[in-house]
């Protein structure tokens, strides 16, 4: 997590102005519904121009966080800024796009009419509507269904249209809440490509997703949330730093593992020992050390945890605290 600035004492704006302000900054953002805590003090910063993944199990507070940031719900405590402006600021909203998780567009409108309606709401200059709409339709692959009513659309097509709506007005910051949940593999691939293209043109993408493989493939950085708080944040490589694992089938060490230097204590499963945080280039060193201690090495299996393994491990560690 980067924490490169402090909020102003008044809380009405952030001190870092203009282009240097982060895309998103939250300070102890919390939401309670009666006795239930949906979000318990979220503090994080998302710099501009990156794809930021927001991961967590169901009920972790992901969608609550998005809704708080977009002003759809009021925080119980804490503050947040989008593009340097306090949440809810109307001028900042002109630069923000949003694809909700659960939604349906007006079935009585065509895709083109939905996009035109949102062009007007987003205050896109009328002279630019035609181009904006055509570009959005082409980007999400709905150009040939532009004049069909939304009530005839499948869930996946509604999701494509939602993405097109979020792209209108060339926003600087886009929130995508489970953008691929209703899409087939081709659609998921398309969304990944669109997301990368957005980053390439300088747009910040806040990707809220259950699909860890998606996050692993496209995100520059990610935060893992559980029980309403961030339990890990960093680049994907940073999150997976301790995820390099070496399994060794070993005999003859006779309790001398405590003498092992330079490596964390392994976990044991019968004859197999699992060493965490051992990059592939250190595997020979590990084997040499084990042999030096008198161990007889029968098998060595270096592997890297997937983000999913790491995610589950983080949740287990959090639960164990």
């Amino acid at each position: 997590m980067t924490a490169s600035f402090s909020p102003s004492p008044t809380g009405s704006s952030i001190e870092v102005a203009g282009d240097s302000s982060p895309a998103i900054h939250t300070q102890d953002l919390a939401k309670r519904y009666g006795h239930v805590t949906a979000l318990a003090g979220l503090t994080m910063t998302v710099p501009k121009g990156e794809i930021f993944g927001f991961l967590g199990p169901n009920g972790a507070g992901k969608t609550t966080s998005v809704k708080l940031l977009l002003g759809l719900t009021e925080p119980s405590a804490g503050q947040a800024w989008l593009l340097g402006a306090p949440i809810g600021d109307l001028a900042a909203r002109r630069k923000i796009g949003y694809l909700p998780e659960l939604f349906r567009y007006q079935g009585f409108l065509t895709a083109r009419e939905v996009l035109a309606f949102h062009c007007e709401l987003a205050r896109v200059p009328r002279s630019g509507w035609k181009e904006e709409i055509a570009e959005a339709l082409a980007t999400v692959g709905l150009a040939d269904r532009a004049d069909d009513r939304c009530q005839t659309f499948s869930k996946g097509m509604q999701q494509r249209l939602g993405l097109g709506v979020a792209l209108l007005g060339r926003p600087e910051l886009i929130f995508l809440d489970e953008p691929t949940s209703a899409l087939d593999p081709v659609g998921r691939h398309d969304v990944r490509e669109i997301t990368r293209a957005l980053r390439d043109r300088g747009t910040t993408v806040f990707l809220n997703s259950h699909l860890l493989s998606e996050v692993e493939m496209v995100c520059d950085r990610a935060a893992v949330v559980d029980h309403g708080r961030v339990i890990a944040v960093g680049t994907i490589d940073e999150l997976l730093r301790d995820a390099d694992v070496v399994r060794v089938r070993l005999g003859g060490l006779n309790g001398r593992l405590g003498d092992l230097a330079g490596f964390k204590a392994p976990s044991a499963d019968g004859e197999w020992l699992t060493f965490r945080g051992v990059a592939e280039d250190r595997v020979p060193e590990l084997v040499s050390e084990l042999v030096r201690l008198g161990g007889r090495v029968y098998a060595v299996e270096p592997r890297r945890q997937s983000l999913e393994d790491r995610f589950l491990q983080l949740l287990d560690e959090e639960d164990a605290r």
Partner: protein
Amino acid sequence: MSRALWPIARMTLVEASRRRLLIALTGLTLAVIAVVGYGFSKLPSVGGSHPLNHDDLDQIASVLTILTFFMFSFVLSFASIFVAAPAISADVESGVMLSIATRPLRRADIVVGRWLGLAFLVAVYTIAATTIDLEVVNLVIGYLPPHPVEAITFLVAEGVVAVTLAMLFSTRLAPMTGGIVATILLLVVWFGGIVGNIGYAFGNDTVAMFGTISRIVLPTDGMWRGALYYLQTPQLLAAQALLGRRAAGNPFFAPNPPALAYLAWTVAWIVGLLGLATWSFRNREL
């Protein structure tokens, strides 16, 4: 006033049109007006071998016109509730609101925009339906009520009051719940008005107060009685006046037009409830 409310208002009209609400209302209303016109055309022969004179015809046409307007008032009130009760809540339930409320507009723009669209719809429908109805009656029998513009204006106001009430519920309650609550309130107030009139007719001030309070709480019945007053011919008013207070017991008789203070209260009621609806929606978690 923010310009953001205009696309919301326009979308309300598009929705009414695309969902075939306008076609259904137009078709049914024209059918009803055709039946009314046919019925009125038979009035001159209702006396059989004793044809009615012009004055008698006018009096009968006056009473029937009041009944026709009562029917429009009934349809208008319930239609207003049925279109306004889901105005906000249905969009919240479907998720449409998520993408709208995150745009650069205030929640007030959404509420007022919706209200403007619905109020316009109600006004256009009422003016068109009642004007056509009166023109048809005028064509077939040569009768027009003494103050049609005033009567239609009060009917429009009744519809706008009903829309405003249902809009308030729409910011918090599910479409069906809001619609049912508003309908019950409307009927209670209508019934309260009749009971209050009976209380007045028989000199029971407590019962009469019941009617007064119900018209203050919800001015739909008050607006209907304004329309009613302006539909009555001078002869009808004079005939009822002979009965003194007892005439107030007739639910289709209004001895006086609504007082100016009551009209001011109705305007304040509409503005106040719209403000309450805006406040309610602004504080709603989406």
